[in-house]
């Protein structure tokens, strides 16, 4: 018997003997870990709670005593939410954000699935060129095209919420096409062939055969795009910012505004209301969001 084998035999005997011990130690560990995570989680949520608490305090108290809970002097009830929000133009921004995010996401989910199917199934030089162009576009930082894109949008009259759908579809297509193509290539082509022999048009093959199979991937793409478009700042700021403000643009322009004193209480209320839709979105779709984000990352 060699040295290492003897050692191994000794060790495993030792570990068997102490297995009850190890179990007890594991239990203690789990209890300690639970309490540690509880504390860390609460600390993790402090930033959000702090904004919430301050949204019920008067303007001056937000910057002077940010850590204090509201008291009879600083408490303003819902005043920040009524007066403050008007100044920040929150509700118009909410409308613009919802419109652009929902419409652009739906368009991207459908149109990029179509082009991805075409790229994955048609063997031709131009489909691979198109594919590599889309992949290439993923690496390019927005600063590279920020000025020229807003000029193009201006000349082609895309500088409005409907035009934004076109811009998001174009600039965001890369990642979506990449994920869709990867998935479609893993689907056996037999189904499509069978449907075509049965006389289905390509339109029917796409909507009756392919798109239903793509549903989990479509969900991933919808979630990734909602997260991107809802939070995107620079593109809407440069292209439509002077007339239509999305939530991030409204938040930023309120803080950059040079006229008069800023209403910090109102601003806190605005931050709270801009986070609430995100929390609702998260609570409703937590499982699919985490699944979508993981799948998107692994395929991307």
């Amino acid at each position, binding site marked *: 018997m060699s040295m290492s084998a003897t050692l191994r035999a000794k060790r495993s005997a030792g570990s068997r003997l102490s297995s009850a011990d190890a179990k007890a130690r594991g239990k203690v560990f789990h209890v300690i870990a639970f309490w540690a995570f509880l504390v860390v989680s609460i600390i993790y949520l402090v930033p959000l709670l702090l904004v919430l608490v301050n949204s019920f305090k008067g303007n001056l108290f937000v910057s002077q005593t940010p850590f204090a809970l509201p008291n009879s002097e600083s408490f303003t009830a819902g005043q920040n939410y009524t007066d403050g929000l008007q100044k920040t133009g929150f509700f118009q921004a909410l409308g613009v954000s919802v419109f652009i995010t929902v419409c652009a996401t739906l368009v991207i989910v459908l149109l990029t699935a179509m082009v991805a199917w075409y790229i994955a199934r048609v063997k031709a030089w131009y489909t691979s060129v198109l594919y590599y162009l889309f992949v290439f576009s993923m690496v390019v930082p927005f600063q590279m095209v920020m000025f020229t894109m807003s000029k193009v949008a201006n000349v082609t009259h895309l500088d409005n919420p409907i035009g934004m759908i076109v*811009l998001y579809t174009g600039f965001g297509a890369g990642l979506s096409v990449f994920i869709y193509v990867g998935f479609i290539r893993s689907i056996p082509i037999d189904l499509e062939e069978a449907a075509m022999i049965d006389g289905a048009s390509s339109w029917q093959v796409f909507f009756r055969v392919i798109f239903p199979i793509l549903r989990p991937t479509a969900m991933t793409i919808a979630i990734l795009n909602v997260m991107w478009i809802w939070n995107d700042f620079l593109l809407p700021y440069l292209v439509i910012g002077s007339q239509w403000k999305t939530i*991030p643009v409204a938040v930023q322009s309120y803080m950059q505004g040079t006229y008069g004193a800023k209403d910090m209480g109102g*601003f806190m209320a605005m931050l709270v209301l801009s986070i609430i839709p995100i929390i609702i979105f998260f609570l409703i779709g937590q499982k699919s969001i985490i699944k979508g984000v993981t799948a998107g990352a692994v395929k991307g």
Partner: protein
Amino acid sequence: MRVSHYIKKWFPVFALPTFLCFILAFIVPFAMGLYLSFTSFRTVNDATWVGLDNYVRAFTQNGDFLASLWFTVKFTVVSVITVNVLGFTVAMLLTRAIRGRNVFRAVFFLPNLIGGIVLGYIWQLILNAILQAMFHQDLTYSATYGFWGLVILVNWQMVGYMMVIYIAGIQNIPTDVLEAADIDGARFRHKLFSVIIPMMAGSITICTFLTLSNCLKMFDQNLALTNGAPQNQSEGAALNIFRVFYKLRNQQGVGQAEAVIFFVFVAVVAYLQLRATRSKEVDA
């Protein structure tokens, strides 16, 4: 091949709509941007060719571009390491049978859904409050505050996101491999470095890539947290390009040249990182 032939003629229906959007929003702006970086311009129509002048001026004249690039590099190195170490550690702990682990996972993931501008202002409030209480100073006092503030912010934002990907990776390690290590009596440290980490090289590649490209391109958080204060010292490359372009007078050409350099830099770093970590991946 039948399918290929069958749908080939439907290019206008399936491919053209996205392709047109792509031309308008990416191909034309990208080509124009490349061209304009060699010109002097204010609008597009008055562009006059100046050769490499803008590229030279990007490094010499404004001075701040190199400093901002250096800020971005430092910030990226620190954040990529901290975010991934923390994300990996939390993932290792929260794949054990700890009570309430799903709630903890959700708490860590939540900040990732909040956008950079809102995140920036939330942390401006907190960090200013802390600095005020401790030193009677605020974020505009020193670029060091801005730097570490940004690191803390990006950790808060991305640790949960990386944790989720690492958890998926840990769950994909075949249990028999871990059991074999246990039977061999491997200590935890050996199991971690000789079994778990090599088996998770795929997740590590993805997470490093995501944190790397997000940190290099960081703009919104930087703008909202400090906007470069004091005196553009806490300004990353993306923010610098924006300022040179829109806030300085008649520097659009230089700004565009900086954007091209920045793009090449990001692309090269991302490519090198993918090549380096992909080579370490093993199959289960």
